[in-house]
């Protein structure tokens, strides 16, 4: 418990330092770019809870992200709610969908599970495209509130919230790793049949993972309409969300929280730089090349390369 609180303190400190540094630059663009990177820190960690710890590959990242975004849009149409509330609501909806998806698909293993999650994204996109209340295929405008107390601008406020969410996801990931839950996850990943035979309640644990993973993705998606200000299905359900969220943990290393964080920070930042200096199309090419390189040459990711992988902490 004490070591967890110390860890949480350090993460909060790092986040605060990052936020202060971004403010010090005094340029809104830093916040725009930083938001995307932080969004990917959350998505990569969330993906890793199911994909890295339990070993179930989710290709439907965009579906959960878009669920959060469109929950925000739908609620915003009914009543003007503050962003944190929308994030919570997006998390609940995406978490429930995660639970349901888990229940329907977790008897599928390996590639079949991955295909089912991809199908979920296609089905949800079709639903949203045909749902006029949230803009349908034409898309929807999200108007940012003009004034936001304390923070200098709305984008600064959004970065703050995303940073807070990233801290929470990292803390939860670390807590999972050091707990019995994490041990059960590892057992499932290593050998699901043996895990069952050793008393691990595999179905329940997998449902916890799909729910948590989906919920965090949904929370990360809720501010998206206000970030892009104009949201339409083909961008909300963009496959690149899934590609990036899978590539980042794989490049960083999937066995612990640090891998996806490192992967998201490095790859996310590189993509922002490349988008500005070369072109927005090249950044996906870079992801693809890096992904192939790491899968072939360093399957343990950067963490493995740096010799940080270690084994599970014996708590």
């Amino acid at each position: 418990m004490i070591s967890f609180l110390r860890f949480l303190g350090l993460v909060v400190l790092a986040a605060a330092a990052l936020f202060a540094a971004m403010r010090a630059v005094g340029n809104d663009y830093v916040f725009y770019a930083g938001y995307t990177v932080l969004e990917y820190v959350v998505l990569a960690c969330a993906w890793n809870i199911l994909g890295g710890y339990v070993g179930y590959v989710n290709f439907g990242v965009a579906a959960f992200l878009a669920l959060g975004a469109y929950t925000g849009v739908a609620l915003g149409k009914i009543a003007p709610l503050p962003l944190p509330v929308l994030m919570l609501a997006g998390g609940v909806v995406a978490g429930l969908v995660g639970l349901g998806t888990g229940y329907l698909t977790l008897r599928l293993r390996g590639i079949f599970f991955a295909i089912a999650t991809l199908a979920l994204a296609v089905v949800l996109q079709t639903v949203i495209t045909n749902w006029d209340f949230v803009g349908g295929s034409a898309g929807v405008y999200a108007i940012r509130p003009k004034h936001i107390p304390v923070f200098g601008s709305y984008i600064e406020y959004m970065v703050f919230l995303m940073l807070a969410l990233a801290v929470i996801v990292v803390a939860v990931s670390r807590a999972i790793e050091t707990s019995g839950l994490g041990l059960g996850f590892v057992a499932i990943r290593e050998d699901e049949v043996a895990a069952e035979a050793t008393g691990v309640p595999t179905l329940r644990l997998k449902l916890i993972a799909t729910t948590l993973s989906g919920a965090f993705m949904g929370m990360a998606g809720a501010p998206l309409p206000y970030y892009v200000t104009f949201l339409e299905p083909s961008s909300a359900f963009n496959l690149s969300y899934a590609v990036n969220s899978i590539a980042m943990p794989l490049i960083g290393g999937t066995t612990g929280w640090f891998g996806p964080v490192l992967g998201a920070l490095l790859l996310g930042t590189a993509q922002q730089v490349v988008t500005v200096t070369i072109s927005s199309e090249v950044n996906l090419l870079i992801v693809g090349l890096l992904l192939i390189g790491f899968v072939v040459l360093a399957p343990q990711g950067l963490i493995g390369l740096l010799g940080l992988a270690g084994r599970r902490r014996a708590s």
Partner: protein
Amino acid sequence: MSALPLFRAERLTKRFGGFVALDSVDFQVGAGERVGLIGPNGSGKTTFVGCASGSLRNHGGAVWFKDRRIDRLLPNERVRAGLVRSFQLPRPFRGLTVAENLRVPLFFAGGRGREETTIDEALELVGLTARREAMPQDLTQVDLRKLDLARATVARPQLLFVDEAMAGLSHSEVDEILALLMRMNEGGVAIVMIEHIMRAVTAFSQRLVVLVAGRKIADGVPDDVLANLEVQRAYLGE
């Protein structure tokens, strides 16, 4: 039948498509008993273990453990009830050390509040204390079997199905595992041994059950069962 048997399968039936792998098999195990389950390849022994432990679903019949019907329970629920299996091929969690492998059942199978010492005791029992921090990939075949059995022990079974724990082992290694299973049995664990090594089965078993083509053809004291003509035909041919 005076007391309730520990384990009871009644008319257990399992089909794979049109193939009947188990055909109305009745099977009982008493508390603390040592039973040998034998039969030619493909006779349904492992399928039986699968249906008993929950990794396979039976199509007919019922499985009882103590006073509880368990054939619709999940595998992990059966483990908690006290019915544990080991695998034909060792299935360690390869990313975890020997001790961490045992921490999985310690956390999930045996009830709360048990200490790390349970792990040490299990390692002591199987003789893997020195390999505590080793990774499974660095263990020998016989040590992997021991790890499997240690993991089963930590789950605190009342009944253990041991599925060919000795296949491929040398003469002396077979004796080691045999002695280990005897020790576990002395601790009060009923054991059903599935095995092709007849020397081991006859030395171990108080009772033998023979499956042939999914049907039980004999059940009794080892000498009687081995003298049974039908059993000899199944093993040796006409």
